[in-house]
């Protein structure tokens, strides 16, 4: 070998051997502190996320024997990729933000996460603090409670007070009123209730709201169990209504090109009179530009019994990743209780000046009047129902539903065709 060849051989050896060296460098087998990892979407600069990180910090100060490694990444698809890759390599973090529902069921069945029921039973004080919204993490035929709620949401109807006063209108209580007011608002030059569906969840939320207000939670339950079909008249009726709303210009123009951020901006710039959205909208800058109020999502005059059926429930919760190390599990439980305690949510509420939370908080004057108004919109709730499709044992059902609705709004398919697109997927689900 020439000298240069030897150099090259050397380079190869060094490059490859750098790896195990790197490995030994980062595995600190120190006995004392326990490291647990947490993966959430609260790593951005919003108030709630900043407050969350402050709490992780103070937990570590109070528990010097526990080190928290915060893997959180806010962007939705980045979070999804990171989590799925970790689950696939059998390396799930000790605490994970989790949305529950049928889409997560396979993870609960495979014990990727820990059943929290024994821990809740062991600590009645902790368990009693929660608003009873465990539906996303409990299943009739699968024992256990696989997560605890962290975020609460309800879809309500925000409205622009100035526009309504100008037009001499009161915010609508029923869908029928909403449709009538639409004419007035349109002739005054406003979009009645802008609903851009370029982000497909917007169409899905409208669908869910209308379906539950008309046909109630029982019908949704039947869809979830496979005893009702997406091609049933109930579904087609709602899809047809949505199409009518679009055709009449209630939802705005060319709505398949309008995304969620644009929708919010239309509300902020006073171009749309109403905007249906969840609790997260309370922190949107658009609200600071106008005089906004909020009322419950309207019900159908023909179905007053469903007036207090609300689209909402727990949005994100926290689940406990299965760990073989009992010390880690104990530390994770401790952190989980810390992050879902009354003090925790009080801190977040005071830090952000608003929000709604899945625990029973003592009242305060520290929140914005809009937050109080918002909380009123679902104080009479008789039941919370999540996205249509979320309870169907098929991970893609929500996405398929939303896509079909988007296709209908794009004019590519009729309401009936949208319904059969959903039904085709629905029939593949395995309803025991």
């Amino acid at each position, binding site marked *: 070998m020439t000298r240069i060849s030897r150099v090259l051989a050397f380079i190869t050896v060094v490059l490859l051997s750098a*790896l195990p060296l*790197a*490995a030994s460098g980062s595995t600190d087998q120190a006995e004392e502190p326990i490291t647990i990892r947490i993966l959430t979407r609260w790593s951005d*600069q919003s108030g709630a996320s900043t407050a969350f990180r402050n709490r992780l910090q103070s937990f570590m100060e109070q528990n010097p024997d526990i080190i928290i490694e915060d893997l959180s990444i806010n962007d939705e698809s*980045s979070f999804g990729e990171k989590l799925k890759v970790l689950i696939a*390599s059998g390396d799930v973090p000790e605490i994970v933000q989790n949305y529950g529902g049928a889409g997560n069921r396979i993870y609960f069945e495979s014990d990727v996460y820990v059943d929290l029921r024994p821990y809740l039973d062991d600590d009645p004080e902790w368990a009693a603090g929660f608003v009873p919204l465990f539906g996303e993490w409990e299943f009739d035929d699968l024992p256990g409670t696989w997560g605890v709620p962290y975020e609460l949401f309800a879809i309500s109807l925000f409205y622009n007070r100035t526009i309504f006063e100008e037009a001499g209108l009161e915010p609508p209580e029923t869908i029928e009123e909403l449709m009538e007011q639409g004419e007035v608002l349109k002739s005054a030059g406003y979009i009645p209730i802008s609903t851009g569906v370029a982000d497909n969840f917007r169409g899905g939320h409208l669908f869910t709201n209308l379906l539950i207000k008309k046909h109630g939670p029982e019908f949704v339950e039947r869809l979830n169990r496979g005893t009702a079909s997406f091609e049933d008249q109930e579904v087609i009726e709602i899809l047809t209504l949505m199409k009518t709303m679009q055709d009449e210009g209630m939802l705005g123009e060319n709505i398949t090109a309008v995304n969620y951020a644009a929708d919010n*901006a239309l509300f902020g710039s006073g171009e749309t009179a109403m905007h249906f959205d969840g609790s997260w909208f309370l922190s949107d800058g*658009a609200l600071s530009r106008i005089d906004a109020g909020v009322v419950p999502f309207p019900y159908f005059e023909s179905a007053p019994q469903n007036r207090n059926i609300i689209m909402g429930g727990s949005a*994100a919760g926290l689940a406990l990743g299965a760990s073989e190390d009992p010390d880690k599990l104990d530390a994770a439980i401790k952190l989980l209780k810390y992050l879902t305690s009354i003090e925790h949510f009080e801190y977040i509420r005071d830090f952000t000046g608003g929000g709604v939370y899945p625990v029973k908080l003592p009242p305060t004057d520290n929140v914005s009047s809009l937050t109080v108004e918002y909380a009123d919109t679902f104080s009479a709730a008789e039941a919370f129902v999540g996205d249509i499709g979320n309870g169907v044992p098929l991970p893609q059902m929500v996405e398929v539903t939303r896509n079909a609705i988007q296709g209908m709004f794009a004019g590519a398919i009729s309401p009936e065709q949208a319904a059969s697109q959903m039904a085709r997927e629905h029939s593949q689900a395995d309803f025991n």
Partner: protein
Amino acid sequence: MKATSFRNLGVGLTVFAVFWLFVTLYPLSFTIVSSFKDNTEIFSSPMSLPSVLRIENYTRALLQATILRNIANSLFLSVISVALLLFLVSICSYVLAREKAKWAVVVYLVFLSGFLLPVHSALIPLTKLVSALGGYNNYAMLIILFVSYNAPLSVFLVTGYMKTVSKELDEAAFLDGCGYFQTVIYVILPVSAPIFATAGIVAFLFIYNDLIFSILFLSKKTLYTVSIGLSAFVGERIVEYGPIFASIVLSSLPMVAIYLLFQEKVQKGITEGAIKG
């Protein structure tokens, strides 16, 4: 300057050149203008100037999101990775371009297959590997990944180019007593400068903007790169575009500087004389 055939662009091409200048400078102005707005203005009047200059977008990008730190990290990773990549590619591609034996063809094809598969397919086996090697929060690991994942494209570009470099040059060098290695470094590399600059720019761009490896393998805030920094204002549901645009303006500057530096080299690197046959 070379390429005489283009010295006179002609009317048609000149008009087009100016048109495309406008077409590509516009997004820059859009980005800069948007970096001084809030969401409502960005979406409801995207084409107009900001009503008030929201300087706080920049202060938030700098202070809250520590964008400068992220830029420095990405620059460091990119510079080291590209340097290592180009060195390894230069010697590897030379052999692949010259060696007639079957094994060289096979190696070339094996490299080629590397940039044909979408990266999402490779993530799970790759993560297991990185985890087994203890490669989390480890820049050495990231650099090795960047070199490996940019290797196929660089090898493809450089090998193709080197095939067009006259063999007489190598033979003259061998006669002068140069070894394989010296021939590459002192003879072939200089005449291949344009393609190295191109491959270097492309690799730099990918590494500087990398998102997926940073997301999967970094969790220490101090190690975060530009793409993670850009997402600091992407909330769970509400996205604040103003500070994101401010961060984009800031993080694009180093990339433009690097590009201009490399691109100058493309043209300076060509020495006079018959270098290709």
